[in-house]
């Protein structure tokens, strides 16, 4: 009986979690103009979406910012994690980690407002550059947090062995350390990507007039009211995130299997 109640509760929670998403996608196929009565099936809103040059340019902008910022953030973050891992004093390490986490816990508005002051004081024009820099900035800490645990797992004897065998610093980094921490780097890149695609508030503050990302565009269109083209957009984005989640899950499962396999071979 209590088990049934538990399942009922879970079904209810999942229904509420997914209802708005299903609702959005269902109406993206409706022939009407509002989200009130379903008027029969049509692809029309998807056609409008794919012939909306402004929207397509914004999608391209968003993807470009996301990919570029995640790549750079992954590079800087991984180097940062290597640096933090090198620190020997406990105090230095703890204070570096605290500083690293400041942007993780700060509310978006604070990050956005303070970056806006920062760019204005340095006279950096608002637009693609400022958005890209801000995204890199708030993605770095999550990369560090994803890479550090892998670095801690790495035994120092591995490094000593490589050094004794005559590896240079470069070889040590590219052939020993990076292959070992690559799952962490990959996870960090992935998280950075989702942070970038998800961000609204920070971008909203530092974007200026000429440049726009998807979140900012959805916000300004949603303020004008219902437009089923946005529903079509959410259909496309839902499919995209399903693919991303599926891919991430599959890669994780695969790497776990490989780990098990290695362990079996080793024992």
């Amino acid at each position, binding site marked *: 009986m209590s088990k049934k109640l538990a399942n009922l509760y879970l079904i209810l929670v999942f229904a509420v979690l997914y209802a708005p998403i299903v609702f959005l996608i269902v109406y993206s196929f409706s022939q009407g103009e509002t989200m009130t009565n379903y008027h029969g099936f049509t692809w029309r809103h998807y056609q409008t979406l794919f012939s909306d040059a402004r929207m397509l340019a914004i999608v391209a902008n968003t993807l470009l910012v996301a990919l570029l910022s995640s790549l750079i953030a992954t590079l800087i973050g991984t180097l940062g994690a290597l640096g933090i891992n090198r620190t020997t004093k406990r105090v230095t390490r703890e204070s570096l980690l605290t*500083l690293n986490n400041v942007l993780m816990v*700060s509310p978006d508005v604070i990050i956005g407002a303070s970056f806006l002051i920062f760019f204005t004081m340095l006279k950096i024009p608002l637009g693609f550059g400022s958005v890209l820099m801000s995204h890199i900035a708030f993605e770095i800490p999550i990369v560090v947090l994803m890479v550090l645990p892998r670095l801690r797992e790495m035994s120092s004897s591995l490094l000593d062995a490589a050094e004794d065998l005559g590896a240079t610093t470069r070889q040590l980094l590219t052939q020993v350390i990076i292959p070992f921490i690559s799952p962490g780097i990959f996870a960090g890149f992935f998280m950075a990507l989702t942070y970038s695609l998800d961000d609204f*508030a920070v971008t909203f*503050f530092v974007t200026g007039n000429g440049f726009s990302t998807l979140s900012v565009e959805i916000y300004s269109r949603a303020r004008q009211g219902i437009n089923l083209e946005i529903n079509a957009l959410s259909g496309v984005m839902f499919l995209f995130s399903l693919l991303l989640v599926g891919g991430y899950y599959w890669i994780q499962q695969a790497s776990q299997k490989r780990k098990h396999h290695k362990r079996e071979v080793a024992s």
Partner: protein
Amino acid sequence: MRAVTKRRTWLYFIPYGLWLALFVIAPVALIIYQSFFDLGHHFTLGNYSTYFQSATYLKMTLNSVWYAFLITLFTGLISYPTAYFLHQLKHRQFWLLLVILPTWINILLKAYAFIGIFSQAGLANQFLTFIGIGPQQILFTNASFIFVATYIQIPFMILPIYNSIDDLNPAFVNASRDLGASNWQTFRRVIFPLTLPGVKAGVQAVFIPSLSLFMLTRLIGGNKVITLGTAIEEHFLTTMNWGMGSTIGVILIVAMIIVMTLTGDKKPKGGAPR
């Protein structure tokens, strides 16, 4: 050997160090600095005295904290049982993924969905008409703001609670049952205290963002609810009074530090539970 590699590798640390200086330390310093300037760029303490003497600002802050508290409370009440029941399922990793999936949908799309659901002739009002209550004004009310904010925050509360339940050693639960505790006693005296760190982490993840959700107050709250975040956005992007905006920002940072200290996990005294 070690010393040599160490000397060469600190060069790699430069970009990260630059990031720390330029994008972590400088912005926080700048927002504090900016809060001491008025519209004419003169140094002043006026922003703070205005803030602390104005009933409007103080009431807005109290309101914002109260709404964030309500959102956190409802999110917690819904999420704890969800995480608990979820943990008992067979394919829990898969179900957990289903909890995370909605967080991947852009927050503005979710808010937009509720504009449709809560509209005059929307789904919610059709339901109310169907059960005989009749259509109500739902959109642009405080209740709709709290509902949508809770909806958006639920996954961020479920995850840390789920993790802490996962860390719970089942031997404690079994021991408690063997010693004759009822289900409720086991929950109240064993399970809940041991999963409290997860709840605290969840409160941290939900309360602070709830103070600053300005897009929801605009789209769903219809400018009736004004949170600290809304006030900051207004001062920075509409009235261009950056000094006052920064002052409210500093208040928000102080609020954040208070919440972090209250919910921070202290090192467990005595032996580790496992």
